[in-house]
């Protein structure tokens, strides 16, 4: 239990996926302009990473390994992720229009989000067992959601501040990210 907890803390705070590994930078800058869209994107990412990780985990251990075609890992994983996103979008379009209204717009963006592919591959390279895999694939995107939310709150205020012309928009947002990364490096010795 303690190991699982430290795994989660490491994934959320210490090795935060955005601030120390830079995965998912594209949506980080693109979607963080409003708090509501940041939360929508974060929730969608948690759902897709959980789903895609479970599928790829079983596919790897039950199909790729027995058939000795582990070199197909990359192609398999990216296709699973892309298919899963398409399926989810279709499913909620049909059965839950309300959910589609709040999350639908973020789903297409996730196919090319490096974070999803990274978590799927990480679960294999770290040779996690099933429970560890579940914990890891929940905490990594949870860290993503947390940072995205904090960052969007800062950015909403930043829009009201006066910034030099050249720094307006993304450059000043990146400086903010640098300061956040500096703050989060303080968690380094936690576990």
């Amino acid at each position: 239990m303690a190991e699982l907890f430290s795994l989660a803390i490491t994934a959320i705070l210490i090795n935060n996926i955005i601030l120390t590994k830079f995965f998912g930078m594209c949506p980080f800058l693109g979607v963080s302009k409003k708090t509501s869209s940041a939360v929508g994107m974060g929730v969608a990412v948690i759902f897709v990473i959980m789903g895609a990780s479970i599928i790829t985990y079983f596919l790897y251990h039950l199909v790729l390994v027995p058939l000795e075609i582990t070199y197909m890992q990359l192609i398999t994983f990216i296709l699973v992720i892309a298919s899963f996103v398409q399926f989810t979008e279709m499913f909620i379009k049909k059965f839950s229009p309300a959910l589609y209204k709040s999350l639908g717009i973020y789903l297409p963006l996730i196919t090319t989000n490096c974070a999803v592919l990274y978590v799927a591959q990480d679960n294999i390279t770290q040779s996690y067992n099933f429970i560890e895999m579940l914990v890891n694939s929940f905490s990594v995107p949870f860290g993503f959601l947390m940072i995205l939310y904090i960052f969007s709150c800062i950015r909403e205020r930043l829009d009201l501040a006066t910034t030099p012309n050249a720094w307006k928009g993304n450059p000043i947002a990146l400086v903010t990210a640098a300061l956040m990364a500096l703050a989060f490096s303080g968690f380094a010795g936690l576990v």
Partner: protein
Amino acid sequence: MNRKENFVAGFVKENPVFGLYLGLCSALAISTTLDNAIGMGLCVTLILTASNMIISAIRKITPDEIRIPVYIVVIASLVSVVEMLMAAFMQELYANLGVFISLIVVNCIILGRAEAFASKNGILDSALDGIGMGLGYTFSLLLIAFVREFLATASWTITNPFNNQVILHLGLEFLEPFKISMFSTSTGSFLTFACFAALFTVLRNKPAKKEEKKEAK
């Protein structure tokens, strides 16, 4: 737009990293040393050119409804091939770049260029566009790595990826006590990137301002 302009646009005006903010994940993470930057940049250039050529070659027989799946399969296969080649011939570089090689699949630049350029233009034009964009990406990585490696280690080193021999080592020893190790971490990466992004915004807006002034007169 003629071919030469198309080729040069990738460096400043349509620079994929500083201008369009594409492919940031790898640009920020890989740019710790010049070696990594060159390796990653050339890798992306190679894959981008090849994928642009293939996608342009099959653009007439690709059904329009499922173009994106076709592109993803093409790109993923190319990346797998390059990854295996690197694991076989450049172990050191492969170990340094690690998971980022396989993440080239989801690099927004490659799918973006396939969609925006290769699906509408001929093979030669697409190849040139791939090389231009790829070199623009390499150029941006080199800029960041140049600053970061110097501030973090007070020297520049370039090694041959095939046999790990040092080709060039340039160190300023009197600056050794003043090096800032923060620049090898993610904070330094964000900070360096932000400065370059601001600089490129200025560079891009400059010609526009001149024209405005001319019109005002």
